[in-house]
């Protein structure tokens, strides 16, 4: 069943560790993906992104010369980006809070901590497919809405311009 669902989709894996790259490729192919492209760092990945226009990106965080954070910013903000809306899942062993926050503020769609399990990877992809998020463009940021859910108990402060109900929805 999965083969037919995923066979027309394209994915890009950005990871400097060849073993982890091979593992992720195998998992995506188990889903039935036939077009899985690879890059070893963010600079290489941006070139592949422009050429292949993938539907989904899985990226590591720490890579040289361009890491997953800068790559994500490039995808979201660059005029050269072929698809600033492409879903990006950051797959990393970095679990420190400040790194997760930096990844979120760069425009990462989902965050997946290593070690990888099939269930967790598929859940992240399902989240993207089943509950696509709005994108927000404001000064210094473009990417998925960083407010995951409405907190009914939150009484402010309301920092966004559109919190005053002047939401411009395209």
């Amino acid at each position, binding site marked *: 069943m999965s083969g037919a669902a995923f066979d027309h989709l394209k994915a890009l894996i950005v990871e400097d560790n060849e073993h982890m790259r091979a593992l992720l490729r195998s998992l995506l192919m188990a889903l039935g993906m036939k077009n899985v492209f690879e890059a070893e760092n963010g600079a290489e990945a941006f070139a592949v992104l422009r050429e292949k226009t993938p539907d989904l990106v899985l990226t590591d965080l720490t890579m040289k010369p361009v890491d997953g954070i800068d790559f994500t910013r490039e995808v979201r903000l660059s005029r050269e980006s072929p698809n600033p809306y492409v879903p990006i899942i950051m797959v990393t062993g970095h679990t420190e809070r400040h790194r997760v926050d930096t990844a979120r503020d760069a425009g990462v769609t989902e965050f997946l901590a290593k070690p990888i399990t*099939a269930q967790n990877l598929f859940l992240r992809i*399902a989240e993207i497919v089943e509950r696509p998020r709005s994108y927000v463009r404001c000064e210094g940021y473009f990417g998925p809405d960083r407010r995951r859910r409405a907190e009914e108990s939150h*009484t402010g402060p309301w920092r966004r311009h*559109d919190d005053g109900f002047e939401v411009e929805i395209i």
Partner: protein
Amino acid sequence: MTARKPPSPMQKKAPAATRIAPGAYPGFSRADATRLSLALRDPETTSKAARIIAGKAVELRDVVLAHVDRLAAATRGSDLDAVFEHAHEIRGLAGNAGLVATGRIANGLCKYLDAIGRADRSPELSLVVLHLEAIARAAHAEDEATRLGDTVANELAALVEKKLAEINFSATRK
């Protein structure tokens, strides 16, 4: 449902934000999403993927052991950037290599070095060596998932938490 209050006039207005709703940007069609969703929840596919991960464990274990050797060399040479780099590789790979305790210990070392670096302080070399020895033992153990491996990982995690609390405490006093 509670109605959201508009911002108070005293509140500084943030720059305008534009929200682009799903459907207004390129994404998965509804028909695609339904088919993909079913595929992602197919137990047969998940089992197949889990078998793929399990099948990589032996190969990944060799990679982890190679990083343990490099971690030891980096520690001997007091090259902290390399120590972090190899500890980070170990924590990322060890879980999928079936070396859960090794990954936990390496994660503790990374957390410590990350916090030390952010606080602009020098790490205690004895703590780094303690982690290195524990990582090497756990990674080479015949049955890594023993109570001993877990106990060592728990004790080192507690030690790292204590050190992190000290770092945070001295940072707040500055």
